[in-house]
C-alpha cells in the first residue's frame, strides 16, 4: 500500500472545522466591536473601527470623532474588552483541562474553590499586606491563594477518599465555603473605606482594566495556553481513566498536579484582574464539545474562543441591563451558569 488511507469523512470534517474556526473568529470580531460600541455613551461602530485602524496605522482613517470619544474607545473600552476576552478564554481553558484530569464534567475553577483561593490572596494584598512588590503583588498573591486552595481541595479529596466525580466537586464546594468565609473575615478586618471597592471587584468587575496591566494576564494566558495545547493528547487519554492513561506512558499523578498548578496560575491571575467570575469554565467546554467533539486539540482552542465571546456578551449585558449603572459581571455569569448547571444535572440523570 503506497497511498495513505484516509479515515472516512476526514476531509469533510476538516472542512467543517475550518469553517467553524473562521466563523468563530468572525463572531468574536463582531462581539468585540459591539462590546466597545455600547455603553453609557453610544459610539458608532464606524468610530470604533476608525480608532482601532488609526492606532494600528496612524493617519489611515480621517478622524471624524472627538478626542473624548477616542479616549472612551481606546483608553476605557478597548482594554476592558480585551480583558473580558482573556478572562473568558483563560477560565474556559482551565475548566476544560480540569474536567479531563478529574474525569469530571462538573469541574470548574469556581466550583473547585480555586477562584475563592485567588480572591483570598488578592484581598490579602489589597487590604492588608500592601503592594510590597508593586503591581505584581495582587496577581502573585492571587496565584498563591489559588494554588493553596487547589492543594487543599486535592488533600481533602484524598482524605475523604472522594475519587468519584461528584464527591470531588463536593470537596471543592466545601473548601470554597471555608476560604470565602476567611476572605470575608479579611474584608471585615480591612479598612472600611477600601472595602466597597474590594467587594465590587470581587463580584466580578472588568471596569478596572488598563492598558498598562494587560500584559500580565496576556503572558500567562499565552504561555499556559500553549502548554495545555501541547498536552492535548495526554488530556484526551486522561478522560478514559487513570490506569489506561498510565499504560499509555503518562505519569498520571504528576500530570494531574501540573494541570492543577497551571489552572491555579491562570485562574489566580484572572481573578486578580477581574474578581470572581464563575461558571465560565463549567459551561463553555460543554458547548464546545457539542460543536467540535471531544478531542482536546479542538476543545482547548474552541473553549478559548467561545469563552472570550461569552464573556464579551456577559459584559455587554452587565453594562446595559441597568444602564447607566454597571452591574458586576459575576452576577450575569452566575445567573447564566446556575441555570446551565441545572440543565446539565438534568441531562446527566442516570438512564
Amino acid at each position, binding site marked *: *500500500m503506497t497511498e*495513505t*488511507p*484516509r*479515515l*472516512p*469523512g476526514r476531509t469533510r*470534517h476538516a472542512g467543517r472545522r475550518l469553517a467553524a474556526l473562521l466563523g468563530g473568529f468572525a463572531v468574536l470580531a463582531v462581539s468585540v466591536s459591539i462590546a466597545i460600541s455600547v455603553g453609557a455613551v453610544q459610539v458608532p461602530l464606524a468610530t470604533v473601527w476608525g480608532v482601532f485602524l488609526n492606532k494600528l496605522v496612524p493617519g489611515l482613517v480621517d478622524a471624524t470623532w472627538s478626542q473624548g470619544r477616542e479616549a472612551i474607545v481606546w483608553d476605557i473600552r478597548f482594554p476592558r474588552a480585551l480583558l473580558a476576552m482573556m478572562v473568558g478564554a483563560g477560565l474556559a481553558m482551565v475548566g476544560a483541562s480540569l*474536567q*479531563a484530569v478529574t*474525569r469530571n*464534567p462538573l469541574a470548574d475553577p469556581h466550583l473547585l474553590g480555586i477562584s475563592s483561593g485567588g480572591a483570598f490572596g488578592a484581598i490579602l494584598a489589597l487590604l492588608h499586606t500592601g503592594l510590597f512588590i508593586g503591581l505584581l503583588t495582587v496577581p502573585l498573591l492571587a496565584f498563591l491563594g489559588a494554588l493553596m486552595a487547589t492543594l487543599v481541595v486535592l488533600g481533602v479529596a484524598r482524605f475523604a477518599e472522594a475519587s468519584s466525580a461528584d464527591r470531588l466537586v463536593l470537596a471543592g464546594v466545601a473548601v470554597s465555603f471555608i476560604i470565602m468565609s476567611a476572605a470575608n473575615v479579611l474584608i471585615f478586618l480591612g479598612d472600611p473605606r477600601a472595602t466597597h471597592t474590594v467587594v465590587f471587584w470581587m463580584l466580578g468587575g472588568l471596569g478596572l482594566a488598563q492598558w498598562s496591566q494587560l500584559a500580565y494576564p496576556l503572558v500567562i494566558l499565552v504561555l499556559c495556553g500553549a502548554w495545555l*495545547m*501541547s*498536552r*492535548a*493528547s*495526554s488530556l*484526551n*487519554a486522561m*478522560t*478514559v*481513566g*487513570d*490506569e*489506561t492513561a*498510565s*499504560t*499509555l*506512558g*503518562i*505519569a498520571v499523578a504528576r500530570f494531574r498536579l501540573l494541570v492543577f498548578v497551571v489552572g491555579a496560575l491562570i485562574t489566580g491571575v484572572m481573578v486578580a484582574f477581574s474578581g470572581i467570575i464563575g461558571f465560565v469554565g463549567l459551561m463553555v467546554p460543554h458547548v464546545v*464539545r*457539542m460543536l467540535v*467533539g*471531544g*478531542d482536546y*486539540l479542538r476543545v482547548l482552542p474552541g473553549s478559548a474562543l467561545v469563552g472570550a465571546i461569552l464573556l464579551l456578551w456577559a459584559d455587554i449585558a452587565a453594562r446595559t441591563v441597568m444602564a447607566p449603572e454597571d452591574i458586576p459581571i459575576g452576577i450575569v455569569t452566575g445567573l447564566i451558569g446556575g441555570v446551565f448547571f441545572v440543565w446539565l444535572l438534568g441531562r*446527566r440523570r442516570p438512564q
Partner: protein
Amino acid sequence: MNSARLTVTDLSWSPRRGGERLLHATSFTLAAGRVLGIVGPNGAGKTTLLRLLYRFHRPETGTVAIDGEDIWRLSARAVARRVAAVLQEHPSDFSLTVAEVVALGRTPHRRGFAGTDGARDRQIIHQVLGQLGLKGLAHRHIGTLSGGERQRVMVARALAQEPGLLILDEPTNHLDIRHQLETLNLIRTLPLTIVTSLHDLNLASGICDDVLLLQGGKPQGFGPPGQVLSEAAVSRAFRVDARRETLAPSGAAHLTYHLSDAGQNP
C-alpha cells in the same frame, strides 16, 4: 508486531511498604506468543498482579521483565510501546469518537508537539479499525456504543500501540454470550503474547496455553490448564467441590462446581 517474552521473578506487592501483602512472591515465564489466563476467587490478587504487569504498581520485591528488560528500568513511554492493557475503564462523558479513542494508542509513539499524526499513525489506526470491524463506527461517539462495541474499541486502541504483550482485565465481563465468544476468538487469533484475567475456568481452559491459579495472593500453580486446574486444586482455591466431567456429544472436559458445605450450614 513482535510478541514479547514475559518473565516474572519473585514478584510481590503490598499497598503500604511492609504492610499486608496482596501478592506474595510469584514467579513464572511466559514464552512469546502464548496466552496466559489468570484465575482465582475474588480477592485472590488477579487485578494486583495485572497492575504490576502493566507498570501501574511498583513491585515491593522482584521484577517484571519484557524480553529480558526490567519494565521499571525503562521509561513509562518505552513500556507503553511494548505493553498495552484493556481495562474496565471506559470514556463516556467526553464525546470522543471511536477513531479518536483508537488514536490514543499512538500517544506513546509520538514525538514533539502533541497531535502531529503522521501518515504511519493514520495507516495503523485505519488498519486496526478494519481488523476489529469498527470502520463503520469510526466517527460515532464512544458513549453511544453498546458494551461489546466499546470493548472492541478499547482492544483496537491497545493494538494501535503495537505492543508485544497485551493485558486484558476480565475481557468478557458484562458481555452477552455472542460477544464473549467473539472476544475470546479475537484473543485466540491475535499474534501477541497475552495475559488475561478470567472468571470462567472453562473459558480459560478453552483459550489459554497456560493458566496461573491464585488464591489469597499466593500462586497455587502455573502451567497448562489441564494440569493446573485439577479437581483438587480448584476445590481448594474456590472452596467448592469441583468435578471434571466430560460433555456428552463433544467429549470436551468441563468443570462443574457444587457447594462442599451444602446441607451442613443452615
